[in-house]
């Protein structure tokens, strides 16, 4: 299994993505269920009660891709998936922009739900991306959310 296999797509990019196009690409022979996750840049920081004006995402070229590939290998083992696509945007983003797409296809729906959910939980805790938010012309690196570590634990069984 490689990144170039028709079943797998990993993209780190500045550009936006089209959910319909990605959904169609996930359809393989005998796919019965596709579950897509789309992350949206929120315009409001609840913890600090502040409006977010914009956001910049940086990553670690090379390592980010290889970590996502590990997630995907792990997901293939756990759930019988027929396709996986992970697209993560980097660079400057604005509130309400699409930031991440995780799409998985499988024969049956429960595996598709679990596979997609598992990849998102892993992405949130292991994939090297860092967000810096701009609020009132001040930059603020987003801090890690401990609840994401907790989320990952539900798969340890």
């Amino acid at each position: 299994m490689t990144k170039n296999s028709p079943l797998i797509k990993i993209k780190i990019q500045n550009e936006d993505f089209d959910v319909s196009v990605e959904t169609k690409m996930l359809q393989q022979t005998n796919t019965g269920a596709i579950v897509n996750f789309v992350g949206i840049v929120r315009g409001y920081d609840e913890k600090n009660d502040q409006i977010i004006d914009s956001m910049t995402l940086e990553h670690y070229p090379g390592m980010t891709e290889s970590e996502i590939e590990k997630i995907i290998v792990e997901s293939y083992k756990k759930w019988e998936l027929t396709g996986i696509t992970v697209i993560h945007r980097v660079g400057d983003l604005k509130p309400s922009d699409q930031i991440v797409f995780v799409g998985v296809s499988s024969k049956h729906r429960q595996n598709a739900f679990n596979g997609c959910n598992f990849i998102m939980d892993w992405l949130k805790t292991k994939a090297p991306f860092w967000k810096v938010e701009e609020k009132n012309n001040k930059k603020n690196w987003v801090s890690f959310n401990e609840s994401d570590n907790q989320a990952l634990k539900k798969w340890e069984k």
Partner: protein
Amino acid sequence: MIIKYFSWIKEHIGKSEEQIELPDHIKNVNELINYLNEIDEKYNLILDKKELIKIAVNKTYSSFDTNINDNDEIAFFPPVTGG
């Protein structure tokens, strides 16, 4: 050896990457960071936040006691916040 810094570590160190010649007696990440700290105390940050900071050696998650050599690429970064 290439050393990379990300996020607020990069901003504190003042650069995203640097090339150093690794002295022969430096055997692991922990010794590397102590060595850097002797040269410039700004590397203190990494020692201060040791519990928090993540390490990659050649783009693979590693730890402070991972062995290193002069051909390696080392990275220091905070917990990830993508997705």
